[in-house]
């Protein structure tokens, strides 16, 4: 073999490119780069179009996996030792507090970023099929909803593990909401807790769900999500460019193949893409995409690390089934649900509909169902694919934003609740409440 190769080249390259064409080939042949297309549309790398929210969510997931594995080495999922091991992580283990704090901040951030990503996709109509063949973006939108639900379940299951008062009562409320599901509610709670009480079985089940089942589900769904993005011809802004170019040229759209840029032989792996991507619109994935990816990852890690340094993860008193903290509040991303379950108990004559069912099962269920089928009901034209706030979709964007605003209002209302569910402004002190009966 050729001499004078660096260690880097010997490990990662079997051959090195000498032309632009060979460079595209090289990306496909490189182990670390082969999951990128050889060339990508410059527009799809724009910060202004996608805000890179999906990438940030993925980086946060990697960060959570890393810190999570460290925490798994230090945490004992048993009722007797869980709280003490978290206390040790917080006060005894070197930098344990930082790893735990980073894990918590990244988890909160991931919930927020995944939701913002969903908003971006809705507002830009990016769940809509564009002009290219064999697209199935509505399916990818549904995969995205499943990823959002998995993210929420991950944060919910992680909430129990410290086995402190915060954990215990959040799970009490959460699993009681599950019993409000019609017919199978009690069975769901029973199998989730492995019994009637939140005890050892429940802790172990939540631990396994949190550390193995749900992360695996996220990984599989994420792979499917990314694969579909590729099969759909990239981000939705590609379809917008394709349409714009079609206006300029009267000739119909030729199809071009992505992977063939890298693999010159055969036509086995080929993907129809939306646009005639003129060479000046396309940039090589390495280094342009890779550079931005690193930049976004770096920014995410810096931001979460700084926040983790400033905001310590709380650890309350050990779980005590006989004393409910006053107030007992859900984390911020579930506060709107907590408000809903408290507000929606309906009385029709002598018949009472529990708010746990209306606010905890019915309304969230309908919201999920509505968002899942919306791409199939959205009748706007392909001109609104991959465009921020198109006039054609103004009304549905407005409805979507109103729902988001409603959720935000409920979250703010929830944060203002004090003891006995009364309202207190942030500057008002809470009254002294005896802590025990």
């Amino acid at each position, binding site marked *: 073999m050729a001499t004078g190769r660096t260690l880097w080249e010997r490990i990662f390259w079997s051959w090195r490119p000498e032309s632009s064409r060979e460079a595209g080939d090289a990306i496909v042949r490189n182990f670390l780069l082969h999951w990128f297309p050889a060339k990508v549309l410059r527009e799809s790398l724009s910060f202004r179009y996608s805000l890179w929210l999906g990438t940030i969510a993925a980086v946060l997931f990697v960060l959570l996996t890393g810190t999570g594995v460290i925490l798994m080495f230090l945490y004992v999922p048993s009722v007797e030792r869980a709280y003490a091991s978290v206390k040790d992580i917080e006060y005894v283990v070197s930098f344990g507090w930082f790893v735990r704090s980073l894990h918590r901040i990244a988890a909160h951030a991931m919930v927020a970023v995944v939701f913002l990503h969903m908003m971006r996709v809705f507002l830009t109509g990016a769940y809509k099929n564009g002009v290219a063949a064999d697209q199935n973006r509505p399916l990818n939108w549904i995969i995205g909803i499943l990823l959002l639900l998995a993210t929420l379940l991950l944060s919910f299951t992680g909430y129990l593990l410290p086995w402190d008062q915060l954990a215990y*009562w959040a799970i*009490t*409320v959460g699993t*009681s*909401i599950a019993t409000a599901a019609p017919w199978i509610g009690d069975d769901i709670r*029973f*199998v989730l807790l*492995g*019994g*009637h*009480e939140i*005890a*050892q*079985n429940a802790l172990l089940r939540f631990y396994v769900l949190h550390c193995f089942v749900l992360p695996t589900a996220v990984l599989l769904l994420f792979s499917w999500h990314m694969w579909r993005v590729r099969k759909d011809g990239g981000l939705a802004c590609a379809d917008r460019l394709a349409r714009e170019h079609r206006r300029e040229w009267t000739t119909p759209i030729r199809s071009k193949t992505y992977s063939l840029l890298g693999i010159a032989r055969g036509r086995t792996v080929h993907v129809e893409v939306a646009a005639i991507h003129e060479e000046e619109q396309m940039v090589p994935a390495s280094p342009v995409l890779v550079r931005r990816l690193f930049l976004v990852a770096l920014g995410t890690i810096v931001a979460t690390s700084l926040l983790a340094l400033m905001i310590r993860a709380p650890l309350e008193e050990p779980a005590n*089934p*006989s*004393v*409910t*903290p*006053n*107030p*007992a509040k859900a984390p911020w991303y579930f506060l709107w649900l*907590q408000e809903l*379950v*408290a*507000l*929606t*108990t309906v009385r029709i004559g002598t018949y*009472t*509909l*529990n*708010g*746990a069912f209306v606010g905890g099962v019915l309304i969230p269920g309908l919201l999920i169902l509505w968002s899942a089928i919306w791409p199939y009901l959205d009748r706007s034209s392909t001109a609104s694919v991959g465009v921020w706030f198109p006039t054609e979709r103004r009304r549905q964007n407005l409805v979507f934003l109103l729902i988001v605003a409603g959720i935000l209002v409920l979250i703010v209302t929830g944060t203002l609740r004090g*003891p*006995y*569910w*009364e309202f207190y402004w942030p500057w008002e002190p809470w009254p002294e409440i005896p802590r025990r*009966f």
Partner: protein
Amino acid sequence: MRKAKSLHPSASPSERSVANSLEAEAGSAPTRRLFLKRMGLGAVLIGLFGHVLAWVRSLFPNVLYEEPRRIKIGRPEDFAEGGTFLEERRLFVFRERNTFYAISATCTHLGCTVKMIHLPQPKRVQIGGRVREERYEFHCPCHGSKYYGDGTNYAGPAPRPLVWYKLEVAPEDGQLVVNLDEIVGQDFRLTV
């Protein structure tokens, strides 16, 4: 969904014969091959279903190492007049001279533990036609449900009154026994 692919005119004879045999297999009279194929597939599916069933069933525990549901809570004379909160059982036990009754402290909305609030001065309330003098109430810290002293819900999201449990006297040592599996009405009184 795509219908069965029509072959390109330039398809070779061997490709055509494969396609023909596939069509024959799909629609026509059962052959031994088809029968065996379906039997095999069915066996695999049944086997897989059995496995999944076993996995899911194993997650529903048969034995629970939880507190018993019928518990001795102490001798009647040891209870003070008025309400006593049994922290471990999440239960209020009330004594009015020689009568006893027990009310659950678990909020009927989402299962938080309600707190007993002693009113500064007694107030008279009407509950379903009956007039009752209230000296205390139950308030839930989670979502603000409120109950009268007999457990009747009157404010907040709680859908039902607090549950009353049956009290008995253990024949062997005279202790009070609460049965958490037996729910009784608000007129229940145990006279000792």
